[in-house]
């Protein structure tokens, strides 16, 4: 089954055509989406995450319609955003991770503890979420996403607010194969090259899809000052 199938998808937000007749089929375990600011990368991520509706065209994520099968999509897909502050919902680290499982898994303390351990946050479990550093907050956001054991993780510029060390830590966690697929929107071309597949988007259209080295090279050639 394909991770993502877009067929002639058009997205209009306000007066702007953000995605134009986009047709795309992705089935690699890790896919990067690259392109300039305003190219439509984040809109693709939001479309796949069910946060934006297509104006026309067909969208299938893991075989699901993000609008009609939204509840199932939420169960199987996790989204991580760039701003760590906006992803904290609960006051302590452990409670924020547990929030992701609220109403779903009755035996969640063990799962929360295991997730905190995996992301190196066990010692901070009772710590205030808002007093964490930027890197720790983004690890917490990842932990909150991965504790649900999603089939697909959508990460929209997850390292944008981070220093080099924390960006590496976050990226390493994203790329560890825990049975999930990864759709990574990024400006970091080194991260894009680590993926199995890359998509170059410009002006709401796909310019290139394929081997990340070739796609990144095509993107770099397009950057003419």
């Amino acid at each position, binding site marked *: 089954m394909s991770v993502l199938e877009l067929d002639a998808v058009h997205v209009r937000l306000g007066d702007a055509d953000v995605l134009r007749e986009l047709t795309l089929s992705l089935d690699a375990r890790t896919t990067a989406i690259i392109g300039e600011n305003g190219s439509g990368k984040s809109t693709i991520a*939001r479309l796949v*995450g*069910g*946060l934006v509706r297509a104006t026309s065209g067909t969208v299938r994520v893991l075989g699901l319609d993000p609008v009609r099968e939204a*509840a199932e999509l*939420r*169960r199987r897909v*996790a*989204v991580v*955003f760039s*701003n760590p*502050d*906006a*992803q*904290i*919902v*609960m*006051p*302590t680290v452990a*409670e924020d991770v*547990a*929030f*992701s499982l*609220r*109403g*779903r898994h009755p035996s969640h303390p063990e799962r929360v503890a295991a997730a905190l351990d995996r992301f190196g946050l066990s010692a901070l479990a*009772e710590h*205030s*979420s*808002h007093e964490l550093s930027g890197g720790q907050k983004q690890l917490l956001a990842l932990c*909150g996403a991965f504790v649900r054991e999603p089939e697909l993780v959508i990460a929209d510029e997850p390292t944008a607010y981070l220093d080099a060390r924390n960006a590496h830590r976050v990226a390493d966690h994203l790329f560890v194969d825990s049975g999930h697929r990864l759709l990574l929107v990024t400006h970091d071309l080194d991260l894009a090259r680590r993926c199995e597949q890359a998509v170059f988007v410009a002006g709401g259209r796909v310019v290139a899809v394929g081997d990340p080295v070739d796609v990144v090279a095509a993107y770099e050639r397009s950057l003419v000052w």
Partner: protein
Amino acid sequence: MTLFRPGDSVWHRLAAGPKAAILAVLVLVVSLLPLGWGWAAAVIPAAICLGCYAVPGIGMLPLAAELLAARWIILVTLAGQLLFLGPMAAAVNTTRVAAVIVVAGLLALTTRVTALLDAFERGLAPLERLHVDPRRVALLLAVTLNTLPVLARAAAQVREAQRARGVRPSLRRFAVPFLVLALKHADELGDTLTARGIR
């Protein structure tokens, strides 16, 4: 912002619902003590306060911290009462106000937000017949509490940015960028909640 302090006191071990009910009764007792009882109307609330905090696992330090946090409310109450009602009424009423604040504070101090949410949901469950969604109301409460430190940080960012650009402080110049930041945060938080499966 987290008011909860991990511990193993009798208050920590008590379930959130019964604990809230006990504390509510204590707050009512303190509030309804007749002023005609004289100094006893001040001594009883103070004794209730001390009794609530003087249990193994809590102690007087958190009580002092709660009183310190409420110092402006206490001082304003005391000043107003002294001015209009005289020393005894001022002492009695201020002690009661302080006692109500610190006794109610025990709930947040000894209960995890998740346990409070669960209790809140259970408490509101009968309202489901009236089409009130208890889960949504409880979540609203949690998100509101949790947004306060984010907004405080946004306010500090606006003030810093304005100082850096030499802008004179004014309510209007502060309010517009602050509102923009607050709305942006609300948008992003909405996306986060949707992505985490909250409808």
